[in-house]
């Protein structure tokens, strides 16, 4: 399981050093900063800037420091649709580019980008702009649809409906898992951001649709907890999602957290007044998967010039 202890690659001491260096405002509570995942003070970093490459660079510098994520990293992007980067249906390739450059420079040797796309990978991956970027860094993008051997059957012991699932094994085998979804509207779930992005990591997402989609999304989040979540909110498709083309807003944000539920809840406010407008976030609250209350988060707003 990739959800390793935070301390393995990012100690509190490093964090405080970094804070002292001025990257982060010091308005952090002293106590248990990085204790249990859903402790009172869940950190959410919100980076704002016009240059997506710099945005990701700054975010990584801030949250990782000089530490490496480990030798093998599994990155879950959204490259599911035959849509261009400007249309906001897939993760922005510039963010992926900066991320890959960053982690590879910091000592990671392999980054694998598995995706179970909604359109043929042959078309969707190149059109999303992510495949060329991944290939540029000599890393591998995996079309999970091409072979069922990519999956491993797992039991979800904390789940309510989704008791077992075939999950892409890369997310279990990597030293660190990074979820890098795009924030966009969604016809059936209202929004599709971080938790919903895992539908592209399982073999049978039809099961989710047939068995209470909201519950399945929350269930899966009890099992797969990524090391980091980076939400691409540089542009957000406000309706007609998940595929669009739909009307865009340009918040120019990158939302980062270790707690995917918190990141999701925060990003939801770009679309709705309350995160609880989205049922799977209400379920995440009820099941205590992560922090959903924005008042209880340490939100660090950082401007990237």
């Amino acid at each position, binding site marked *: 399981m990739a959800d390793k202890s935070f301390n393995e690659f990012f100690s509190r001491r490093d964090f405080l050093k970094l804070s002292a260096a001025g990257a982060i405002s010091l308005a952090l509570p002293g106590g248990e900063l990085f204790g249990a995942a859903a402790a009172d003070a869940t950190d959410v970093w919100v980076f704002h800037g016009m240059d997506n490459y710099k945005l990701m660079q700054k975010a990584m510098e801030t949250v990782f420091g000089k530490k490496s994520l480990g030798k093998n990293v599994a990155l879950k992007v959204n490259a599911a649709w035959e849509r261009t980067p*400007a249309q906001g249906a897939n993760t922005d390739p510039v963010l992926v580019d900066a991320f890959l450059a960053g982690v590879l420079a910091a000592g990671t040797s392999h980054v694998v980008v598995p995706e179970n796309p909604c359109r043929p990978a042959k*078309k969707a991956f190149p059109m999303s702009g992510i495949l060329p970027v991944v290939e540029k860094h000599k890393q591998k993008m995996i079309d999970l649809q091409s072979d069922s051997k990519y999956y491993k059957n797992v039991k979800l012991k904390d789940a309510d409906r989704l008791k077992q699932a075939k999950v892409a094994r890369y997310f279990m085998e990597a030293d660190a898992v990074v979820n890098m979804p795009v924030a966009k509207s969604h016809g*059936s779930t209202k929004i599709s951001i971080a938790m919903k992005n895992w539908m592209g990591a399982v073999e049978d997402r039809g099961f989710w649709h047939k068995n209470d989609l909201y519950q399945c999304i929350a269930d899966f989040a009890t099992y797969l907890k990524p090391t980091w979540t980076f939400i691409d909110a540089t542009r957000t498709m406000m309706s007609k999602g*998940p*595929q669009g083309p739909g*009307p865009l807003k340009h918040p120019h944000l990158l939302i980062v957290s270790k707690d995917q539920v918190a990141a999701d809840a925060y990003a939801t406010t770009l679309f709705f007044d309350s995160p609880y407008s989205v049922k799977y976030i209400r379920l995440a609250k009820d099941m205590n998967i992560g922090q959903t209350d924005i008042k209880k988060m340490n939100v660090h707003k950082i401007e990237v010039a």
Partner: protein
Amino acid sequence: MTKLRVVRIVIRLWFFIAAVFLVLGGPLPQAMTQLPIWIRKILPQFSLLAAFTETIAQRLNPIANFSEALAQKRWALACYLIAPCVIAALAIWKGRFFCRWVCPAGSAFSLSAALTKKTKTKPWRIIRKPVAPILFWALIGSALVGVTLFLPLDPLSSFNRIAGRSAGWVTWIPGAVLPAFLLLGILQPLAWCAWVCPLGYFFDLLKKIRTQPAATFNSQRRQIIAGLAIGIPVAAVWKKFRQAKPAKAIMPPGSDSTEHFSSTCTRCYACIAACPSGIIKINSSATELDRLFLPTLDYTAGAKVCAEFCNECTKVCPVGAIRTLALEQKQQLQIAQAKIRRKDCIAWGKNEVCAVCDEYCPYSAIHIEYAPDDEYHDIPLPVIDSEKCRGCGYCKKACVAPVSGGAIDMLPVEKQKTIHDSYQRDKNHSSAEPMDG
């Protein structure tokens, strides 16, 4: 063997191998995918008969089409319009020159005739009278009414469809026309070329008109009258029969309507060979005489779609039964209508969250409604906007309702129509489009 004969054999062999390669994919199926898509129509396109009768049937203006192709810089299309002119000129000058030098069907018949000669069996005479003149004039007659009724018997179209088949043995029949005559050719050498081929007769006719115009029509008078007397009424009855029925099948994009498509398609199956999704199938319903063996869209077998970024079939029709469409035109064309069977739908029928159809709709033709009394509006109910639905079938493919074929039906439309909405808002989109040809 004279030098000329050797040259002729080499050239014929070359054309024959090239044609077999085009139809069957040849020894290198991968190489086939590297060729431009219009190569799929090159063989049936060479039929002067098809070009001539389709021009009459569709009331086309070749000169206008030619200048339009030049104006749009569609060189390939312009070249195709030149090809029939060159072949016609050759026929006027040399008669059956095409048959003897180029026609791959002719080469196949010559080969089987050569076999018969070697075995020294006495040739049978199963076909004793020339069928070709009557066939030709019946075709002209039907074309005048607006239907190319006997054009599927064109040898080049027949050759092109040898490999075409779908589920069910019935769909093998159209591809078996040429092989059947090939077998007959063993017993009666060149039976097809000499007695049946309407294209060969057309070449003969063109030369005769040049050399002895008056005598030609005098000697052919009976056949001309007989042919027209068969072609015109049969086509007229056929057309009435066609009009009386509502649309029941979904046609490839650009084919306008079942009426237009079934009237003008030569069943060469170039569109079937070109379709990357494999959604175009040979219609095998024998009860639908008017669209028997017609290429139609089958969404059910293997959950196929008419892909958003694809206009391949519209690039390969040799006779304009399927109009050439730019990708943007095809994306705005309604070829069918999706309809949700609400009792089988997970959202409408079971009141559970799903709406996967809305997710997959590329044209935003599905919108979500919520039950009004629900506090959080949690059950999204998908509604198809019939004014926006293109009939691509992505929703049907995505549908997970636990009934056979899902809860979405694809319904045919009387006439394909252009939808005026700007679904592709972002103009960067088309410039990054890899398939735009």
